[in-house]
């Protein structure tokens, strides 16, 4: 075997007593696509920062291209050809593409005056390397996430990169954009550039990488060839738990639909969406990012009221003009972005749990019944097993999975007939994801009607009793998850 490009040996790193990395080692060959996976807080990001010189390891050493570094500095890392593309890309949104690309070279060359011609030349060369087509004079802030990423990649390549580290590069990309990114990664590989791809998405690990390494709570669990990996093993390595995947089968279906949409539409986003949802059923809605699925979700909760068609709740027509209308119609909604839409992060867990049902915890004059409030909080913290010593603590202190349970608790406390969830497990680690799925299935069996809107195909296939596929704002197909496959669903989505 050839000499490895990167060897990180026996790295330890701790932060104020907490050991983030415990004797981990990592080896990457030239031109290899290596995937680093693990749950949030497992130490992946810490390792990246040690390799790129942002953090200094406590013990262990790094060897890059045969050269041994005791402590690598950011300058050493860049000079030897290590480039990191962070999730936020570290680019300047208020400058143009050209300025962003030429900036570092200009600084490095010590030019004091701006020469637009020279800058343009540098920028053109940079984007030509990955065949990226973009107007150089556009402000980076106006680009899409995928385009910003391309700018960041182009910039990374300008420094004769030999190893590019990408920190969860696919999080905000649509499926098509992910495919385009993978093509570029393959192209880079052909040029002998090694890629360290950080992800916790199983399908991406399978699709792109040759070898993988999985971390769990700061320790290396396993490293090996991707071809030896399967679904079950991957989950086990990530969480240390075994899960039984069982398909959801509805048990207590009501005769009459509880929620029915007839020809629902919102100009410019979706049109002619019809479905009938019965109690005890979990309806899945899937589609690409621009398919209108998010807008449909928002319409069902009155945030972006539908302008065509009709919605019937228990056979009576309801017009949802605001979230209050939806709540009055006993519809609950778990939004897509937990951090900004679902939770009041700095407020207490208690306040977050009761906020939507708060009017029912008060007398007619709006004076809170504190005993009732306390009882509600205790009930939901217990029922959803929210791991906290004190519900007075801020939501900020909790992990993603626990935060999502709070959002769920908030709506369950309102006792809704219909619960709409938009991306219920985005950014939640695998263990909590299974727990949340189990909760949803239990709720359905207890008679709640649930709509899961998600582009996580394994999620909808496993948990839904029926699946609607949206494409360009229209329902193109209704499928039964038990009788279909991811490939079939995908073929309707694309």
């Amino acid at each position, binding site marked *: 075997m050839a000499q490895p490009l990167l060897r990180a040996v026996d790295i330890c790193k701790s932060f104020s007593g907490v050991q983030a990395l415990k004797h981990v080692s990592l080896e990457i060959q030239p031109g290899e696509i290596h995937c680093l996976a693990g749950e949030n807080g497992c130490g992946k990001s810490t390792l990246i920062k040690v390799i790129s010189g942002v953090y200094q390891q406590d013990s262990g050493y790094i060897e890059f291209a045969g050269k041994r570094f005791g402590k690598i500095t950011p300058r050493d890392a860049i000079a030897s050809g290590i480039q990191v593309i962070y999730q936020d890309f570290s680019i300047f949104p208020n400058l143009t593409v050209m300025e962003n690309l030429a900036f570092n070279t200009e600084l490095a060359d010590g030019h004091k005056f701006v020469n637009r011609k020279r800058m343009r030349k540098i920028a053109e060369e940079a984007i030509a390397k990955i065949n990226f087509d973009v107007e150089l004079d556009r402000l980076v802030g106006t680009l899409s996430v995928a385009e910003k990423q391309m700018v960041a990649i182009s910039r990374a390549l300008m420094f004769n990169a030999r190893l590019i580290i990408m920190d969860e590069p696919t999080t905000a990309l649509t499926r098509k954009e992910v495919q385009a990114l993978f093509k570029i990664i393959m192209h880079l590989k052909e040029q002998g550039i090694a890629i360290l791809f950080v992800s916790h998405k199983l399908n991406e690990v399978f699709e792109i990488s040759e070898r993988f390494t999985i971390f769990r709570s700061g320790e290396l669990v396993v490293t090996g060839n991707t071809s030896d990996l399967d679904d079950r093993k991957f989950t086990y390595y990530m969480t240390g738990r075994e899960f039984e995947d069982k398909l959801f089968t509805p048990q207590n279906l009501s005769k009459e639909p509880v929620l029915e949409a007839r020809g629902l539409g919102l100009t410019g986003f979706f049109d002619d969406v019809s479905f009938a949802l019965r109690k005890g059923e979990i309806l899945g809605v899937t589609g690409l990012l621009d398919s209108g699925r998010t807008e449909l979700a928002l319409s069902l909760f009155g945030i972006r009221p539908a302008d065509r068609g009709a919605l019937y709740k228990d056979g009576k027509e309801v017009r949802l003009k605001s*979230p209050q209308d939806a709540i009055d119609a006993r519809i609950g909604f778990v939004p897509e972005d937990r951090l900004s839409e679902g939770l*009041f992060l700095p407020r207490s867990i208690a306040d977050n749990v009761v906020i939507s049902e708060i009017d029912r915890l008060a007398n007619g004059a709006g004076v809170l019944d504190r005993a009732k409030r306390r009882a509600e909080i205790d009930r939901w913290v217990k029922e959803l097993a929210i791991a906290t010593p004190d519900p007075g603590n801020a939501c900020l202190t909790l992990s993603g999975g626990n935060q999502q349970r709070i959002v769920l608790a908030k709506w369950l406390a309102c006792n809704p007939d219909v619960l709409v969830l938009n991306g219920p497990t985005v950014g939640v680690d695998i263990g909590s994801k299974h727990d949340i799925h189990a909760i949803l299935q239990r709720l359905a069996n207890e008679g709640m009607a649930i709509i899961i809107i998600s582009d996580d195909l394994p999620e909808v296939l496993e948990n839904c009793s029926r699946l609607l596929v949206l494409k360009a704002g229209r329902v193109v197909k209704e499928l039964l998850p038990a009788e279909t496959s991811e490939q079939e669903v995908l073929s309707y989505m694309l």
Partner: protein
Amino acid sequence: MGIGAKFGAIYRRDRHISRLILMMIVWAAFMAITRFDKFYTLINFQTMASQFPEFGLMSLGIMVCMITGGIDLSTVGVANLVSICMATLMKGMANEESEIAAYVIPLCFLIAILMGALAGAFNGLLVSKVRIPPILATLGTSELFTGIGIVITDGKAVSKLPRMYSSAINSKIFGLIPTQLVFFAAMALVTWFLLMRTTYGTKIYMIGTSSKAAVFSGIRTDLLLVKTYMLSGICSALGGMVMLANYNSARADYGTVYTLQCVLIVVLGGVNPNGGSGRISGVVLAICLLQMLQTGINRFPQISSYYISLIWGAVLILVMVLNYFTEHNIRLFKARRS
């Protein structure tokens, strides 16, 4: 646990408030050492208690707005407009000897409260429905209300009020407690109750934390904002009525320094200008501290009253720097390990 550790625990429970109390004690001790006989008199405390309710009431209004993440800069404008209108009304209702019937005073208060609520509702609508940033909306209405006041009065003071009003408000209950203080205490109590014991209070803290999450939680944010600015308007109107009694006249440009002073008091009292946090006890303490500083400095004839702003500014900066250290967990003094 030693006494020191106990105090330490109490101090850490709410550093904002502990720090304000500490500063008050330091200042009170300083006054006790230097000017004991002039500062520690019943009359002096009664005077202080009759002066601070003017800006104290306005500060309460700004506080509730700031908790929602907004601000109300129109308080002084509302206060002056209300006091001008009520002064004119009282003069109109007086007989030739400039006397008014007893019922006129409660009537005027009622109308003042309605006017304040109306002005506040206007602010609230601009902020919630038209979505003008609160700082701009209320700065605009501040000019508007002041302007109306100037037009009504031609820029002159409305004076020669019926004597009964001023003497009623300046009287002391049981010969001890200034009536102005009662207005302030009542309003502070109402505000405390609204914030801590009602759903309204919980909701406005939530809106201040994240208005987006509030919408997604089904909170009627527009309605709550209108209510909040109405509450602020009512506080301002009462402040205006107290000013009217203290000065025995009304004018469109009285108390213009109060606007920014009140904003600073509220911040000093520990209300986060970005919304979502702050307690009424902190704001009340900050109000009292300011009044004690002002009165205290006045007890030194050799120090010109021009120094008040300077000292006040220095105190504010000091507190905010200390808050910065607290928030970022920077220890000025390393705790010794025992």
